[in-house]
């Protein structure tokens, strides 16, 4: 029962992560997800961590692209 509650809590916590739009906060959140990813061996938890990490990477890409297009605008 305790194991189940632990798993439910971890899944809830991971799924509730909101990255925001601040690059530093996104990377810190990703570090935290990585930490659970490294220590846990439950398939569902690993999958949830992976999903969130991918969301984080996508967001970083998007923000990075914005940075690049903004710098082009400035240079013109």
């Amino acid at each position, binding site marked *: 029962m305790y194991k189940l509650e*632990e798993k439910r809590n971890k899944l809830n916590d991971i799924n509730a992560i909101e990255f925001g739009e601040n690059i530093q906060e996104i990377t810190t959140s990703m570090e935290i997800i990585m930490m659970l990813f490294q220590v846990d061996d439950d398939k569902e938890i690993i999958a949830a961590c992976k999903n969130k990490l991918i969301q984080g990477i996508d967001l970083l890409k998007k923000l990075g692209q914005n940075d690049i297009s903004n710098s082009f605008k400035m240079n013109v």
Partner: protein
Amino acid sequence: MLSQLIYVSVRANECSDSEIQKILESSIRNNAKIDITGVLLYSDKKFLQCLEGDYDEIMALYDKIKLDKRHKNVVLITVGMIKERFFPSWQMGSKKINSDYEFSTKMSLSEKKDFNAILKGEKPTESKAIDLIKKFF
């Protein structure tokens, strides 16, 4: 049932060092009443807290702490039964990581030594979770 819970979270930008002092003050005050001990590690960006005590008490406290706006994205790393406490005499020990620090608790010299050793990776321990503490920051 004596248990230990470890979570990590993202420190909010608004959470100044003086806010952390306030957190420690309320922790020391509240945790003593419910026989919870532990340690709070923090850097400029993250928190890692270890809570030890009765299972139901630490789970209830965890739910309360999660609502605190001074951090976000709180993630449970581990919770499980322990035979004895790792931090028996700290209502809430604390340490700022990556800088010179003073422990802001009344712990004994040998506990300070132990904790320093744990953080430096010198003290072998069976707990995966405690191992993590030293790796984290």
